């Protein structure tokens, strides 16, 4: 099998226009970073989807583990006081 000769995988993030975040839009294979950027441009911005592109080696991404999802994310559930809707204000100032 030729997998050992496969070009590394890169994740592609595109900013669609100034003022917006870069958003993950897919991945591709490239042998080096310059190529990864060019390929990202050619593959993911053919319809003017992009004003800026990031690429990052997929194996460089550190991701949270779905098995620790409860420990990681559920403790935020009861912190309702972080949300503006928690506070009932008098009608006259409720647009605050």
């Amino acid at each position, binding site marked *: 099998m030729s997998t050992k*000769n496969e070009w590394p995988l890169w994740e592609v993030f595109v900013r669609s226009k100034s003022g917006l975040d870069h958003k993950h839009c897919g991945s591709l294979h490239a042998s080096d970073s310059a*190529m990864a950027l060019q390929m990202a441009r050619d593959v993911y911005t053919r319809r003017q989807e992009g004003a800026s592109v990031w690429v990052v080696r997929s194996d460089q991404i550190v991701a949270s583990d779905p098995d620790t999802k409860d420990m990681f994310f559920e403790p935020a559930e009861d912190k309702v006081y972080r949300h503006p809707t928690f506070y009932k204000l008098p009608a006259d100032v409720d647009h605050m």
Partner: protein
Amino acid sequence: MSATTHSLEEIFQAKIDADVRIEPKDWMPDAYRKTLVRQISQHAHSEIVGMLPESNWVTRAPSLKRKAILLAKVQDEGGHGLYLYAAAETLGVSRDELLDALHSGRAKYSSIFNYPTLNWADVGVIGWLVDGAAIMNQVPLCRCSYGPYARAMVRVCKEESFHQRQGFDALNVMMTQGTPEQRDMVQDAVNRWWWPSLMMFGPPDAESTHSTQSMRWGIKRISNDDLRQKFIDATVEQARVLGVALPDPDLKWNEARQSYDHGPIDWSEFWNVVNGHGPCNRERLADRVKAWDDGAWVREAALAHERKKQLRAKAA
């Protein structure tokens, strides 16, 4: 089956039933993973093999506008293949492994691409009928239970509607502004592609092997026969606008069903083509293998260059 697997499986199915997407690192049954790899990679292979019948006409496109449209369209198919390979890779297989399965004949791709493109109108008809049928099949996949596949399909479907419209437009110009020879060309293409397009939805529901489980897993949402009927009902009107005849004498409106009845589909032809005996099976695969083999030295050289660069950076 151990107790933990059982409960994991129950949690998994409960998520699917609640329309929660499955993501790459989530637990999933092996059979679900295998089914997805098979389906997504077949889909990806179909996209890149599907580039061939149309790229057959790129150098002969009859105007510069049509040449640009066709190139952009075939390029999109390559893009779709790429998005889909990437979705399959999230399941733990490499693109090279998937390509190896294609090249060695172990993997399948859509049989429609084993038919030849014999005249320029075939390019338009592929856009109108083949991409039209593909869209019918693909739109429900945007809601597929596996997140990366569903997201890839959203991107694919967005791009695909241009494909069907450009095909119809090319045919419409030939039918309304062209010469009698051009109209004959369009009718000839429709005659050859109509039945294979209907076969794209797969065997009748009663004979479809993977359907029930795929439905339960939220990989498939609508049955083959229902999609096929939907396609026919949409296409009859389009054919009328275009002024072409669909080559089925039994095609007629059924008031009670509020749908078109159609003549019998020759499933023996379908299975012959699936099993390697279509007009172009060998050529299509040979073309893919040749392109891949011819490119081997390029892929290796790019890696060799990168290794040299890294070494030099370290030495410096």
